[in-house]
């Protein structure tokens, strides 16, 4: 390394060298160095993400247990998928999940962010408090709420003791009707504070003078919100919607941790169904087709987002 010093010193500003000759060679060397710096990233990504992702495409056309050789069966897995009632029920649960997360946390996030942007005292404390659940591990968060919503010792029984009996004995995670919304509620508890902070950052970057101008023009609070706030935070808003849809399509952790999709499939989503097909029923080929289908849908949504972003942000 040290031996090269004078040589480099003799060539001032190697990046600017326009002519052929030593500058060209240097630039080529620079490119090689650049790619050498990329090697660690490339190696782990090919090994863990890229390679297995490509393999998934192949395995989705096979009958495969997850160990040993795979037998090519063409489009059979995809045909089975389209005819699989459990899959469509799980997909429907994903849709419900998405609708829940497109409304409740976004409404709470907008409300919290708006109120925070209007105050100065204790703003930092509130931000901190709202963010804490987001850093709490999902398994602990789930355990806390499993206690609080316990049918015999949870909030229902406590309320019953003070004369409000209608939640007494209700099994939030054990009933087919309530399992899915209850898990969504728990997941939202850990999520909404993050949305508050995303929106707050966006709100704080909206130009104050625009509000001033709107007020001078006689716009009320609601009109200010519609005409100044919403356009101002639109990029964040669109981003949160995209993030929500993708996260909801792929929702796994809280459902698997709390109910494992039960009772009787009442809270099964595609991700938990796929996981079971792969690791409990050893239908890895079928699981690959399911995972690919799901990824295809989420990829499609990202593409729509990119398209809209290109259009929407230029206008």
């Amino acid at each position, binding site marked *: *390394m040290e031996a*090269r010093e004078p040589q*480099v010193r003799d060539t001032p*500003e*190697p990046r600017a060298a326009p002519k052929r000759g030593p500058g060209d060679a240097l630039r080529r060397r*620079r*490119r090689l*160095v*650049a*790619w050498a*710096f*990329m090697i*660690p*990233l490339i190696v*782990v*990504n090919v090994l*863990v*993400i890229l*390679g*297995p*992702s490509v*393999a998934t495409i192949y*395995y989705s056309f096979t009958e495969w247990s*997850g*160990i040993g050789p795979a037998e090519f069966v063409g489009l059979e897995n995809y045909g089975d998928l389209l005819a699989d009632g459990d899959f469509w029920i799980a997909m429907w649960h994903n849709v419900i999940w998405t609708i829940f997360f497109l409304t409740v946390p976004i409404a709470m996030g907008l409300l919290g962010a708006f109120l925070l942007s209007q105050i100065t005292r*204790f703003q930092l404390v509130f*931000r*901190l*408090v*709202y*963010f*804490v*659940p987001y*850093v*709490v*591990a999902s*398994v*602990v968060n789930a*355990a*806390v709420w*499993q*206690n609080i919503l316990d049918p015999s010792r*949870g909030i229902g029984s*406590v309320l019953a003791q003070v004369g409000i009996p209608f939640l007494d004995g209700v099994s939030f995670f054990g009933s087919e009707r309530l399992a899915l919304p209850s898990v969504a509620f728990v997941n939202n508890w850990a999520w909404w504070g*993050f949305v508050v*902070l*995303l929106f707050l*950052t966006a709100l704080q970057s909206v130009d104050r003078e625009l509000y001033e101008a709107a*007020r*001078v023009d006689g716009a009320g609070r609601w009109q200010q919100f519609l005409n100044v706030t919403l356009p101002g935070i639109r990029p964040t808003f669109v981003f949160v919607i995209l993030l929500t849809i993708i996260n909801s399509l792929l929702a796994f*952790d809280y459902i*698997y941790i709390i109910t494992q999709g039960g009772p009787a499939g009442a809270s099964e989503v595609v991700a938990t169904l796929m996981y079971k097909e*792969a*690791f409990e029923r050893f239908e890895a080929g079928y699981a690959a087709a*399911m*995972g690919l289908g*799901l*990824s295809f849908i*989420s990829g499609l949504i*990202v593409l729509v987002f990119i398209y809209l972003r290109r259009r929407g942000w230029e206008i």
Partner: protein
Amino acid sequence: MSILSGGRARREPSKVPYYVVLILLALFALGPLLVLAFNSLKSDAEIGRNPLGPPLSPVFENFSNAWVQGNFATTMLNSTILTVGTIVGVCVIAGTAAYAMSRLDLPGTDAVLLYLFVASAIPFQIFLVPLFFLWSILQLTNTLFGLIVIYWAVFSPLATLLLRSYLVALPRDFEDAARIDGASELQVLLRVVLPLSWPGFLTIALVSGIATWNEFLFAVTFIQDNNLKPIITSFWAFRSNFSTDWGLTSAAGIIVILPIIVLFLILQRRFISGLTAGGLKG
């Protein structure tokens, strides 16, 4: 203009309702954690009488019992190894890659950027099953190293994007001076860029560190050996074994989240800006 707005400002409504709603939201955020803290200090008998309220006669044995029965000495060490290993690896991987992209005029940077955006949002469903197969062949299942490599790959795309945007914003004068003085690219990176960009590295270390500590899916899939389990999946199994013993499981829950909460309180601003920036880049 200022006179006008001053006149309007006097008629602005009081902020009290704002604070009322904000406090209600704060109670919603903290209430469940308070219940967790309360229950961790209650005996079995007291939880029967008073399942959610504050402890009237606090006991601390739950913590020592949970520590022993939950195998926390082992699992906390496992999680620490996983987290430190992941952070070091991600910093090296993302550091070199971000440096190449922001400073070395990497040919094809746009394509790499596109890949990183896709990879940082890629669903695990698309690669999990073949990855498990591959890891079984390589005998990397049930090893901490195997899990760390997965975390390197999964967390490095976002970390690279974050670090790259940090480096792009950093002035290049010092580096150019060092290059003219004859420093090699590696020397420039280690002696000039690294000392200047440590806040960027701290951010990606925090983001990937907390993600590792809290990670569930890969941990539950790739580690079955109880003595290699990280704290998260070990707690999950513990919770289902002792689901009726709320005092014990609550104390265990506190042990699981305490390191993160303490770190969060110390580095709150960086935490929040790092994680929200991470979200925004997604």
